[in-house]
């Protein structure tokens, strides 16, 4: 009996110790993440100082390069802040996977800021052929091999009020009959509820 009580006590103490260690580790991670965020903000200050130096020298190319770098650092800072917010939310919700993913994002942002300040400014990732094709399908208005988007009826090329009213009326009736605009009908610019109430 005494043995069982002893085992229970040891188990309880072990659980409390493990939980305390985990909580401490979590606090360390957030503190380190805040430190990383501070470090990226320092890089932003350095990038602005470099820009001011370039401006003082009057070298146009140097100014253009410094602006590019400062913008890239600012962009990394924005990504870092977003990652930190995600990390905070994940930690609060005890979602360890999400917290780890956010910590990875924060590290990527820190590396991007460092590269922007000291080395190559990160260029946008080149699109794959598939991405280019997907991009080509957007808002094209049709054409061979391209997706067809209905033209904007509020921008009818014919500049006559009659035709414009006709097309807008058609759209209103179509909208009213659809699930999005159900219950509303379009009558010459006035809307009526589906029921008298």
């Amino acid at each position, binding site marked *: 009996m005494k043995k069982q009580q002893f085992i229970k006590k040891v188990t309880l103490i072990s659980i409390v110790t493990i939980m305390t260690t985990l909580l401490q580790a979590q606090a360390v991670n957030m*503190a380190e993440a805040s*430190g990383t*965020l501070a470090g990226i*903000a320092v890089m*932003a200050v350095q990038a602005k100082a470099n820009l*001011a130096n370039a401006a003082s020298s009057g070298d146009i190319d140097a100014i253009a390069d410094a602006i590019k770098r400062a913008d890239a650092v600012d962009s990394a800072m924005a990504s870092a802040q977003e990652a930190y917010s995600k990390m905070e939310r994940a930690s609060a919700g005890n979602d360890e996977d999400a917290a780890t993913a956010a910590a990875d994002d924060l590290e990527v942002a820190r590396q991007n800021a460092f590269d922007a300040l000291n080395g190559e400014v990160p260029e946008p990732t080149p699109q794959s052929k598939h991405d280019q094709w997907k991009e080509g399908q957007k808002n094209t208005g049709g054409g061979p091999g391209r997706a067809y988007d209905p033209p904007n009826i509020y921008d009818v090329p014919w500049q006559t009020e009659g035709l414009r009213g006709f097309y807008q009326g058609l759209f209103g009736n179509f909208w009213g009959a659809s699930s999005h605009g159900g219950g509303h009908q379009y009558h010459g610019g006035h809307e009526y509820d589906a029921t008298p109430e």
Partner: protein
Amino acid sequence: MKRQSCMALILAFGLVFIGGLSVVQADEAIDQLVNDANESIAIAAAEVEEARIAIENGKQLMTQIPTDSELIGEVKQMLFEVSKEWELAINALEGAKQGASKIVSASNEEIARDYKLLATVNSGVALAGAKVVQTGLLFVDAVANNKTESLDIIRMAMQDSLAATSQVRFNYERVKALIAEKYSK
């Protein structure tokens, strides 16, 4: 019986060896923390020194600006910001040195890591402050030497720097609060 004694002896040796290895690894980790902290302090100290030189030059530049210059008000405002940042940078550098000095005497690696973090972030505050001082004095230089075409960019850079510096300080306070919270439990 002999076999049992032999096994116990091997186990004891194993434990002593692992213990010794752990102590060596912990010492190496502490050394690395001290090196990292000292490196960040050295970088910040160099920038603070640059800022001090810029302030010395700024005193001379101020004599070149006519008192009736239309930019004199802005220059005074810039110098006001510069003096605030300078004071913060000096204090932060001192704080960084204090933090780094406590790494070795920390009772365990966890606490040593926290002192290293405080030292590094304090160095960041000092570095950012020193850079803002340098940027502010570039504005004074531009006014004194009639580099009017660069004024707009330097002005904008200074405003952005002040905003980013406040981010540095905000995060430093957050680091301090999180570490304090950890040890108050």
